[in-house]
């Protein structure tokens, strides 16, 4: 079918300033996100990326006080007039530290907590929990206590708890920072599988591009509360490398290497975003 993907998030001139803060956390945000996109949201520490994410599921303005400007629609619902419960069904949020999110006595109960509060039937709850455990590979953990799990397992349980709410959008705020690199890769892969398999929209907040570059087609870069770049990830790395580097975005090391060699006039062509493509290009040149 060739119908255009639905717009799931639309921000128009969105801004927010926390009570007591010297300046706005975000301002003049115009952003449109289509269904099934995988977006990397990045920018220097304190640039407003977490605040923007808090708006997406209504944590701002419902739980944080401050001054709101502009408009934000999630699934055509206005965030300022909707109940948080309605929004949290649509936008799931996975926090940086999974320990902050898990609290029940067993993994299974933790995952069931969300659906139980939606007023669903027993069977419906059962089905949602089983489904969420299946797709996140947490079924073997169901009777364990969350604190008995490793960081990677906890992060997957947090993801399952969010999935059981059947959201359309999942926001992951630096989901891999507490995980060792191998587990971090697993979590990112599992997230991308969910996007593909369930048609979800994924927003990942991350400083390190190397982890996400393989999955995200689009990058949104923030600085000083504003969006300063928004586009295809590979093109943005190629065309706006200096801007990204200047902002302290953790560009993949192979991209940095290539840019330095290109400045020296030793290589030409597009900046590679992963090791494999860099190895291929450099190998090709040395074969000549």
């Amino acid at each position, binding site marked *: 079918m060739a119908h255009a993907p639905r717009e799931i998030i639309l921000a128009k001139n969105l801004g927010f300033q926390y009570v007591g803060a010297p300046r706005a956390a975000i301002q003049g945000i115009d952003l449109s996100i289509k269904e099934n996109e995988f977006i990397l949201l990045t920018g220097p520490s*304190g640039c407003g990326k977490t605040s923007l994410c808090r708006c997406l599921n209504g944590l701002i303005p419902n739980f944080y006080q401050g001054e709101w400007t502009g408009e934000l629609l999630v699934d055509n619902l206005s965030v300022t007039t909707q109940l948080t419960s309605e929004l949290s069904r649509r936008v799931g949020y996975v926090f940086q530290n999974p320990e902050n999110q898990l609290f029940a006595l067993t993994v299974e109960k933790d995952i069931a907590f969300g659906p139980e509060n939606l007023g669903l039937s027993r069977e419906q709850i059962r089905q949602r929990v089983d489904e969420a455990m299946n797709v996140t590979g947490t079924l073997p953990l169901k009777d364990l206590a969350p604190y008995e799990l490793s960081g990677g397992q906890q992060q997957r349980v947090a993801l399952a708890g969010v999935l059981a709410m059947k959201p359309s959008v999942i926001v992951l705020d630096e989901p891999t920072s507490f995980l*060792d690199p191998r587990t971090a890769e697993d979590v990112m892969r599992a997230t991308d599988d969910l996007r593909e398999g369930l048609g979800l929209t994924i927003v990942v907040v991350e*400083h*390190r591009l190397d982890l996400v570059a393989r999955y995200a087609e689009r990058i949104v870069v923030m600085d000083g509360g504003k969006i300063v770049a928004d586009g295809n990830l590979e093109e943005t790395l190629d065309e706006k490398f200096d801007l990204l580097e200047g902002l302290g975005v*953790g560009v993949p090391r192979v991209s940095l290497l290539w840019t330095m060699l290109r400045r020296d006039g030793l*290589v030409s062509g597009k900046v590679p975003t992963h*090791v494999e493509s*860099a190895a291929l290009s450099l190998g090709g040149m040395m074969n000549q």
Partner: protein
Amino acid sequence: MITLEKVFFTYRSGQTALQDIDLNIVGGDFIAIMGENGAGKTTLAKHLNGLLKPSQGRVLVDGEDTRKVSVAKLSRKVGLVFQNPDHLLFSETVKDEVAFGLKNFGFAPDVVDSQVVRTLEALGLAEYAETSPFLLSGGERKRVALAAILATEPDYLILDEPTIGQDYRQKERLRNFILQLYSQGKAVVMITHDVEFVAESNPKVILLSQGRIVARGPADSVLSKDELVRRASLVRPQMSRLFSELTKYGLPGDVVDVHRARLLLEEKLSEAKVRVPQNS
């Protein structure tokens, strides 16, 4: 010097977290402790300032057994910055937070003030002196927690995952700061699984896996060994993965940082006379 002699540690649950750890930390050292989630890294760190005592073996801090000295006394020598800044922060302003430890140690008010200003400036936090730590971003709060410990100028600084939530610029700042400290003769130990940060900072690496030290050595030699790195659930740095594809062109296989990679490739590509016109 901090000395760990045949240290074993078993939690009350019966879970063994450290086995047979021998380690010396002296002034001027810069050490990265790496390993998988649950490898025992944080448990090891907590032994360095006496928060945990070994079940077997012993830990000596400047010759004193940590079982016989109070944590309060040890903490004047050994500063431990936790992974989660919120375990540490409680004051109303950033300035008070950083002053707290100093006041506790009995420094004169004017010394406290000047030390607070100096530390906040060094960590890029001066503009937040009067702000509540809880209004800051996660990355900024983490720097406040670091500042609070640094201000007391411990001889041994232990950092648990200092790069989490920090952008690249902050990481460079942190790197320079660490460099300054160990060149002044302090010891810096960081626990991390940030392989790229380690690759570019070149500390001595101690690789832990399931509570045991499985490798120790310079960052480039440890991080370029695929089997070891996998065993500790890490991923080799991008440069290492790139250069193992390029060894067939006569390039070395133990490159982990981008600057060495650049020098080697510049030489190689110039000699291969594949110079192409600059395209920008």
